C-alpha cells in the first residue's frame, strides 16, 4: 500500500535528490518508519529522541496538519498524500 510522500529540499540529500517518494504503513508513524528503512538518516531529522515530531517539522496528511489530527498515530490509507514541510522558509 504505497503512500506518496513529498520531501522538502533540505531532506532530499537522503532521497537521492528526489522530491517525491513512496513508503508503506497504516499510520504516519509507520510510514515514517518505512521511510527510514528506505532512506536511512531521515528519521532523526523528523523525530526527536523520544520519538515525537520535532517542533519545527510540520507533516501534512492530505493538506491537514497532523498536529490537528491524531499526531503520529493519524491513520493513513492507500492514495493518501503526505507532505513534510519545515516550519520556516530560511533567508531573511
Amino acid at each position, binding site marked *: 500500500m504505497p503512500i506518496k510522500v513529498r*520531501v522538502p529540499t*533540505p*531532506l532530499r540529500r537522503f532521497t537521492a535528490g528526489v522530491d517525491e517518494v513512496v513508503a508503506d504503513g497504516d499510520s504516519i508513524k509507520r510510514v515514517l518508519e518505512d521511510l527510514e528503512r528506505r532512506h536511512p538518516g531521515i528519521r532523526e531529522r523528523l523525530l526527536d529522541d523520544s520519538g515525537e515530531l520535532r517542533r519545527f517539522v510540520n507533516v501534512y496528511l492530505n493538506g491537514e496538519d497532523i498536529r490537528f489530527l491524531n499526531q503520529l498515530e493519524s491513520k493513513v490509507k492507500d492514495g493518501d498524500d503526505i507532505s513534510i*514541510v*519545515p516550519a520556516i*522558509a530560511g*533567508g531573511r
Partner: protein
Amino acid sequence: MATISQSSRRLRADANAEIVPTPRAQSVIELIGNTPLLEITRLTEGLLRPGVRIFAKLEGFNPGGSVKDRPARKMIEIGLARGELRPGKVILDSTSGNTGIALAMVGAALGYPVELVMAANVSRERKKVIEAFGAKPIYSDPLEGSDGAIRLCRKLIEADPGRYFKPDQYNNEANPLAHFETTGPEIWRQTGGAVTHFVAGIGTSGTVMGAGRFLKSRNPGVKVIAVEPDDPMHGLEGLKHMASSIVPGIYREAELDDKIPVSTEDAYEMVYALGQFEGLLVGQSSGAAMVAALKIARSLREGAVVTVFCDFGDKYLSTNLWIGWQEWRREHLQRLIRKWNVSASATT
C-alpha cells in the same frame, strides 16, 4: 576577589552617554537605526568570568520591527540615486519576511508599489503586516524554502524586466554597506570601542559582513563570528545553513573568524529563557544568536561580546517556536524549585 577589567569600566561609562533619541522626524525612514544595546545580565549570572559581558543590539526597536529596515532603506536610497528605481517601477524581491516588511514599509513611506515573493509557510503575522503596508505578497512552494522564492522571483523579472526594481538583498552590496555605515558604528560607540567579539546570525550575511567589516576597521583584533543552523533541516526562520543553500553574492566566508552551528531546539529554549530572565520576547534567530554569544563568552577570560537580536517575538507567536513551551516551562520550573530548595506546594 573579582575585579572589574579596564575594558568593562570604559564600557560602562560610555554606554550611558550615547543613546540620544531622535527629537522629531518627518518620515518613518528617518527613525531607522540608532537602536539600544542591552547588557544581558540575569540569564548569564554565575555563567561568565567577571571580566566578560554580553550585549545585545535590540533591532526590534526599528520602526519596521527588525534589523532589515537598515538594508531596505540603503538599497532603495542607492536605487533611487542611480535611477534604477524611478516613478512607474515596482519594487520586487524574494524574502521570507522581515526584509519584505521593511521594503513594504519604506515603499509605502516613499509612495512606491512593492511586490514580495515568499514561501507560503512564512508566519501568518508577517503576511498580514506586509499586506497592511499595501504590498502584494506572491507565494512560492513551501517545500522549496527561500531558494524556491529566489527562483520564482527571477522568473517574474525575466518575464517583464522593465517593470521592476529588485533590491536583491542577497547580492546587493548596499546591504552590508547599511551595516558598515550604521550598525557597526553604533556598536562601536555604544561599547566605547570595548567590543571584542561580534556574533551575528547569517541569513543574507549582510549584518555580519557589514558590521563586522566596520568593527575590524576600527580594531583588527575584533573577532567576527557567524551563527548558522546546525543542519539544512532546521526551524530557525531568517537563518541560512550556508553549505546547503544558494550562497549569497555578498557573503565572504574568509572575513569570518569563526562560524558557530546552533540547533533549533537550543535556540527555541533560549528564546523562552530570554523571556523569563530578561523580560525580552524575541524571535528564534535572536535565540540562536544568544546561544552562540553565550558559548563564546563562556570561553573567554575577558571581553565584551556583542550580538544582534534581529527582531522581537510577537510575530512568531503563531509559529512552531511555541510548540512544546508548556513542557519546557514545567521542566524548567522543577529545576528552579530544586535550585532554590523550596517545596513545590509553596509555588503553586
